[in-house]
Structure formats: structure tokens, C-alpha cells
């Protein structure tokens, strides 16, 4: 657990005259949010374990502009996008992996029109490819037989039709994957998307994350798995609100795999 993480930057790769196989786009939540940083580290441990030649942009990374765009600030979004694209094109980035579905969606779908063409993968897709290539193995470990329900992030699922990669990984843990009544293309939002993460909700009779947490609790899970740092926060808050944090953990798929391997 205490072994030092190897996190090379693009600048270091360039100085050494080398090119990594993939850029890990950490994202703002993954860089600054205490809960999300744990996901970042778990994913890096897996990358290290699989000997993936990756790099991060580090201090050269900046917000993709997703929350600005969803809030309606197209100027700010495009300023961010063009700046990021300039940096990545200068480094001749080809492939990007990210632990955030919002960054994933924005870079994959909205950057090409502004001059940024990359192959973009969500970390669950990337981990699945490592598995397929025999570079990473998954053991059930402490999660063997556990009831796990997966909450689909809107920007991974409906927005980009990625439903199976995270589920395939969970199944590899020998865990019992249980589905909520609304899942996959009909999965209910956690309430954070569209820049809602950064503001109070409009008046209503319930918070969206509470509604979604209740749906998750109906499956009587031991773990609620997520694939997005924002969903993770919303579901964690929901579980706390229901005073279930003692029994039910909210974990990213990458964390589950890293923990199962005792990394």
C-alpha cells in the first residue's frame, strides 16, 4: 500500500525524447477532490502493476470545459478546449484514458471539432483491454461473492453507450452483480451532471442523489460501484443520508480491482 506511485509527466517524457503509450487525463475531481484522488491513485496503481507506459499532464492539465459548456458558457468551454488541445497536440498525444466520464465525453466527442483528435477511453474500457491483453489479472479477493450494484454514469452510459466494460470488470471479481430497477440506458442520473454539482438544486421534494441511492439500496447491495468521481460523491452523500455508510461502501470500479489485488 505504501509503495511509491510512479506518475511521470508528459514534460518528463518529452525531455527524455520518449512517447508514452497513453496519456492519463486525471481531471479536476481526480486532482483536487479528496475522495476522487483515491480513485486516481487506485487507477495509477493498476497502471503501474500492468507496467503501462503512461504519463499525465500534471500542471499543464486544465479543466476540459465540460461544466462550463453544460452551463451554457460556450466561450469558456472553447477557450479551455483550445488551450488543452494546443498542449496535447504539441505533445503529439494519440491515446487518452480518463477516470472521469465527463472528461471522457468532452475530449472524445467535442474536441475533434476544435482540432483535437484522439482515441479516448474510459478507465473501465482501458482496464478491460489490459485484461484482454493479459497485462492485468483480476482476482475476486475480498469482493468474492459480494453483492455489488453498478450505477451507470450518464456521460458514460446514455451519452456514449458504454454499459458493459464496467460490468464485465465487476463480474471478473467473482462478485454478484445486481442491477437496479432503472439501469443502463434507463439509469437514473445521480444529480451532478449538467453543472448541477456546483450549485444547489432547484426547489423540489427530494434530492436526485437520494432518489438514486434509494434505488440502489433496494438491491440490498454491500457495495455500490461507480465509474465517475461525481457520481461517487453523490452516491456517498446519499448513503450517508440514509445512515448506511457502516454497511455499504461506494467504490469506483478501479478501486475494487486495486483493493482485490491488495495494491
Amino acid at each position, binding site marked *: 500500500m505504501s509503495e511509491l506511485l510512479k506518475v511521470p509527466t508528459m514534460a518528463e517524457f518529452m525531455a527524455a525524447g520518449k512517447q508514452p503509450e497513453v496519456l492519463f487525463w486525471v481531471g479536476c475531481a481526480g486532482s483536487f477532490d479528496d475522495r476522487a484522488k483515491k480513485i486516481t491513485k487506485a487507477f495509477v496503481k493498476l497502471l503501474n502493476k500492468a507496467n503501462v507506459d503512461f504519463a499525465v499532464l500534471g*500542471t499543464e492539465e486544465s479543466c476540459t470545459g465540460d461544466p462550463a459548456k453544460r452551463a451554457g*458558457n*460556450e466561450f469558456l468551454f*472553447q477557450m479551455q478546449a483550445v488551450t488543452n488541445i494546443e498542449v496535447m497536440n504539441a505533445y503529439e498525444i494519440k491515446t487518452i484514458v480518463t477516470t472521469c466520464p465527463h472528461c471522457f465525453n468532452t475530449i472524445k466527442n467535442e474536441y475533434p471539432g476544435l482540432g483535437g483528435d484522439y482515441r479516448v477511453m474510459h478507465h473501465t474500457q482501458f482496464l478491460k483491454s489490459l485484461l484482454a491483453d493479459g497485462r492485468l489479472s483480476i482476482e475476486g479477493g475480498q469482493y468474492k461473492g459480494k453483492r455489488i450494484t453498478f450505477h451507470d454514469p450518464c456521460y458514460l452510459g*446514455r451519452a456514449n453507450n458504454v454499459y458493459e466494460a464496467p460490468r464485465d470488470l465487476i463480474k471478473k471479481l467473482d462478485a454478484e452483480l445486481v442491477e437496479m430497477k432503472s439501469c443502463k440506458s434507463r439509469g437514473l442520473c445521480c444529480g451532478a451532471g449538467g453543472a448541477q454539482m456546483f450549485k444547489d438544486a432547484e426547489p423540489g421534494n427530494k434530492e436526485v442523489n437520494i432518489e438514486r441511492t434509494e434505488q440502489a439500496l433496494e438491491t440490498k447491495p454491500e457495495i455500490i460501484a461507480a465509474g465517475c468521481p461525481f457520481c461517487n460523491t453523490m452516491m456517498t452523500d446519499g448513503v450517508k443520508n440514509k445512515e448506511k455508510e457502516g454497511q455499504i461502501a461506494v467504490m469506483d470500479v478501479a478501486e475494487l480491482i486495486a483493493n482485490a489485488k491488495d495494491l
Partner: protein
Amino acid sequence: MEYIPQILFAIALIVGIGYFARNVKKLTRNINLGRDVDANDNKSQRWKNMTMIALGQSKMVKRPIAGILHVIVYVGFVIINIEVLEIIIDGLTGNHRIFAPAGTIYDVLIASFEVLAFLVLVAVIAFWIRRNVIKLKRFLSAEMKGWPKNDGNIILYFEVVLMGLFLTMNATDYQLQLNGATGYTEAGLFPVSQFLLPLFDGLSNSTLIIVERTAWWLHILGILIFLNYLYFSKHLHILLAFPNTYYGKLKPKGQFDNLEAVTKEVKMMMDPNVDPFAAPPEGAETAMPAKFGASDVQDLSWLNLMNAYSCTECGRCTSECPANQTGKKLSPRKIMMDTRDRLEEVGKNIDSNKGEFKDDGKQLIGDYISHEELWACTSCNACVEACPISIDPLDIIVQMRQYLVMEQSAAPMELNNMMTNIENNGAPWPYNQMDRLNWKNEA
């Protein structure tokens, strides 16, 4: 004298279709008030989508009960229209059941129309019960009060009456055939209307002919009236579902358009070689849009406007919306209905002002759709996914947010803070960009 029915029929047909054509022209004019966007790429995928989603009803059956009932009414509507073709030819030529020589094929056709008519009746009654007795939640939302509720029921009554007339027409025709009345040669199989025969027991041939003719006339007149009702109703979806699914979004749902006008500005700002004080080149003024985002229907794209006319207010979008489910004001269905209602208002304004829109001091934002509704959206795409005919309420919401933010600086305060943070330090929170990699060394 003997041509009078044919002349009357031709007049009814011309008036009915003519008035409808006039309204279709108006409808097209209104849709074209929208911004021009190109949606003609990837034609093969578009045809496939239309075939699967509109013709094949693939999204309707995601909710099995409503879906199957709808498929019955839809198939009934399409197939029974073959009968309308015969009615029109008969009406214009003064024949009776002109397709009858087709023999067995005709028997099978008439029999299947009858079975479908019966099934449509059953389905329509089930729909009515769902709306008025079971009171499904999605039919009771605030936006469904008044006209939308009546509209839904009127359509159902129309269908009951039309099917009833069709079966009455067949039953009396069958009785006349059995009686050997002149002009009523034996043709067709009547598996459903034969059970109506006791109703006409003991009536003379002349009375039966009056009933048969009346039912025949009311049936075709009813169809013409119903055709013309479409324009004033949510029921337009029976036509617009086809272009709407053809022009539906092909890109991933998460991909929002990048505003071209903004791209130009941003590129200019980022280009060190641009002289900020240079006079704009000739014609540059017109290249810039009058405003960013949308505050009224004319700012939306023609696709958004066609979406609005296509909406049949089923409410699947609203019932899947996380904001709506948790009691917020936002209802994606209301967004579509408001857009249509405002567009109709603008259209009428143009009609009464000699083809020019005269400012009426109103707009879609504020007068129809509140800021509160717009800011409640999580952009989760559940509404887009739920729509059985590829309507995209989210696209309208985002364009209106763009107007609020870029033209009015009217975002909620917390969002302004978030955006200021991104501008200043490249993250939605007030952390220093230079600290982005600190996590690496934290325990």
C-alpha cells in the same frame, strides 16, 4: 341527378385535403422560421433509424403495455387506410366496393380490417381508461391540464366513432348482401360486424341502405375532419414521427454542438498574429449571429421546431427526468409544448401582420419557460433516450442556457463562481493549477 353524390364527394375531398394542405404549408413555414442546420449526412443510417423507430415502433415497446396497445392502433390505422383508398375510388366513380372482384384477397382484406378495427377499439378504450380512470401520473402533470387533456380524449373519441361507423357500414352492407339487395353483391368476410346484425334485425332494405350510406358518408367525412384536426392537435405525430426520426441526432447523445461563431472568436483571441484593432473585413458583421443561444423560437434550429410539432405529449421524457421525479418544475414535455405553443403564436402574429413578425414583447424564455426550469436540468439525456420518436428537449434547454449565460450573464451565482474558477485557475474549484499533481505525493 345520379352524379350528385359523386360531385358532393369530390367537393368534400377537395375541401378536406385543400384545407389540410393549406395548414401543412403554414406548418412548414413555421418550422422554417428556425435556424438552418444541416442534417443530411449519413443518409443510410437515417433511413435505418426511421424504419426502425417510426415504422418499426422499436422505442414504443420499451414500455410493453402502452407499446403493444400503440402498435395495435398504429397497424390498424395504416392497414385500414387501404379501405379508405377503396372508399375514395368508390366515392369518385360511383361504384360500390370496387376492389370486390379481388375475390378471396378481398375477403381476407376486409376480414383483417374488421379484426383490426375491433382491436383498435379495445386499445383505444384501454388508452381512455389509462388517461381517465387509472389516472397514470404522466398524464396528470401541470402542463396536461385543459386543452392537452381534452385533446388526448378527443382523439380517442374520434377513433371510437370512426371504427364504430366502419363496423356499422360493414354490418348493414353484409345484411343487404344476405338480403340480395341490388348493388350489394356478395363480397368480403365480416368476422366482427356479423355480430352487429341483430341490431338491424327486421329493418327493410331501404332503411338498411340509408343506414349503410349514412355510415359510409360519416366515416369518410370523419376521416377528412380528423385529418384536419391533426394540425390543431398533438396528433400530428402520426405524420411528423417519420421526418423527426429521420433527422434525429446521430452523434453520441453526450456530444453537444460547438458553436461556430464562438469558435471564430476564440481562434481570433488565441491567435497572436491577429491585430485586435484592425477593421473587420467586408461582410464580417453579417457573419456574426445576432445573439448567442436562444431566447425565442426563431433562434432555435428548424429541427427543434419540428421536434415541437412532433411531440404527442406522451410524457415518457418527463417520467424519466430526474429533476421532474424529484419534484422540480422542469418537465421536458413542457419544454416541447411551450416551444410549439410559442411557435404557433409567432406564426399567427406573422399571419396577421402581412407576413412580417411584429414584436409582441414576448419570448419563449421567461414568458413560457422559466429560468428555474432550465437550471434544474442535469443534462442526463434520459428524456432524449425515452422519446419514442427522437425528440431532443435537452438541445433546446442548452441553447436557452447559452442565451442566459452569454447574453444575459444570468447564471445562478454558484455557477458564476464555478466558471470564474475555471477561467482563473483551470478547475471548477478555487485550487491552484500548480497543485494539480500534488495527489501523487499525498499519503
